[in-house]
């Protein structure tokens, strides 16, 4: 184990709460459209001309819309472990926000342990380490 500090791989996109992390999105003040990543400029709902948004924490659980895995090492800027370890990917539908969010699936869970419609929960896990820090990101944890 190292004593490196834990940092968000992408700052400001999720809370660093180890037990119950949330993605940080935005919600339009006027029409209630959610955004991830958060947008704070112009609402994209064609029927809304709002420019004011509230920063919100998005739902931590949703239903798996679909899933796959990565059997080959992606190109940069992905930072791969050596040797490369395949990982699963899930697209998860949030009910309240009515949107789908992609992410890696936690280590150790492969496609044969997932199903469309299954509940998944947001967790934080290491994306990669650099010389100074452990960079964490959001991942989906399918529920049994």
């Amino acid at each position, binding site marked *: 184990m190292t004593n490196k500090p834990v940092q968000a791989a992408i700052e400001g996109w999720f809370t660093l709460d180890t037990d119950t992390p949330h993605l940080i999105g935005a919600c339009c003040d006027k029409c*209630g*459209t959610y955004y991830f990543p958060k947008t704070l400029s112009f609402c994209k709902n064609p029927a809304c001309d709002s420019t004011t948004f509230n920063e919100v924490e998005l739902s931590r659980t949703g239903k798996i*819309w679909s899933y*796959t895995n990565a059997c080959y090492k992606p190109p*940069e800027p992905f930072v791969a472990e050596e040797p490369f370890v395949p990982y699963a*990917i899930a697209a998860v539908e949030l009910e309240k926000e*009515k949107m789908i969010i992609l992410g890696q699936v936690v280590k150790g869970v492969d496609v044969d342990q997932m199903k469309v419609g299954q509940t998944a929960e947001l967790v934080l896990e290491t994306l990669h380490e650099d010389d100074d820090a452990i960079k964490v*990101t959001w991942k989906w944890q399918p529920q049994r």
Partner: protein
Amino acid sequence: MSQDIAVLGVGMHPWGKWGRNFSEYGVYAAREALKDAGIPWQDVQFVSGAATMRCGYPGYVAGATIAQALGWQGAQVNTSYAACASGSQALAAARAKILAGECEVALVVGADTTPKGFLAPAKGYRPEDPDWLRFYLGITNPSYFALYARRRMDLYGDTEEDFGLVKIKNSENGFTNPNARYKKKFTMEEIKNSAMVADPLRLLQICATSDGGAAMIVSSMEYAKRIGKANAVKVAAVSTVTPSFASAVVEMPDIATDSAAAAGVEAHSFRAALPKKAYEQAGIGPEDVSLAEVYDLSSALELDWYEDLMLCPRGEAAQLVREGATKLGGRLPVNTSGGLACFGEAVPAQAIAQVCELTWQLRGQAGERQIANPKVGITANQGLFGHGSSVILKR
């Protein structure tokens, strides 16, 4: 008043990995199309090029680059960029100009030279760029195709064999196509033994990138009559609509869909919107379609298109391929050219290549790929950034 324009000529440079300048493929294809149309280059009044982003500045101004390579002759010029739909957008520009009476005859052309290896985003730490972000998180192009494929399996009961049947069909279709890059008839065993890339998709079910060029000479119906080609194949519709908010499907390169949480907002499928507009323009329906050329970025995606084109109800596409309905000789052949499975994608040329194949089929000039008595053909494709297209040709 008729909104039809005539397809006087079509031409292609064979797809491959030739490593030459893209404009060479474009000029070759343009000369083939001019020869096919039987008109001299000097008579072309408008050059509508499809841009390539990979070939430096000449690629951004592909219309002018190819016009200069053919020999400047004072035509009006335009270059379109719409990702995979660039070729259709170039055709849409030519069609608009012809129907507005601003020109009578136009060249539509697209060509590309692709680099070796992965297409990767620009360097640096740039999380505000969705394309950079998804690569950083480990989500590549095949990830998206695989998500769509897996959803079909879980929702509709499609199998890996169904996707394999699509690949086998396309490899048989492309086998005799002189313009195809891959000419090999694959077996189910070979497909199932190819490496898994993104479960459930294997290497042989995901399209490659290629060099290639395609071109068309299009004109007003009046012009076609004057040169004795009143019976030319006609373009009846060119749809290049954007998606409608909110997107129902997570699309490359995004990490999330739109939210459909606001009152009055529903989730919409972009793919389904593209042919809908084309059918409307042409004043025909899916029941009139004799054949289709669709964007099989993966073998599984071809099945999604059957449903988006309304060739069968949602969820029933696999049945069509199991029955052999979409093979050569079936009741509704799809990707008679061999599709992306046999071509690989040459982005700015690909949407034009789809139209070239429909033209040859509708004229009865498709050689060993020829299907019996087709009357109406439709294309469909989708690319990045809310671009896509659907073109309808008729006899």
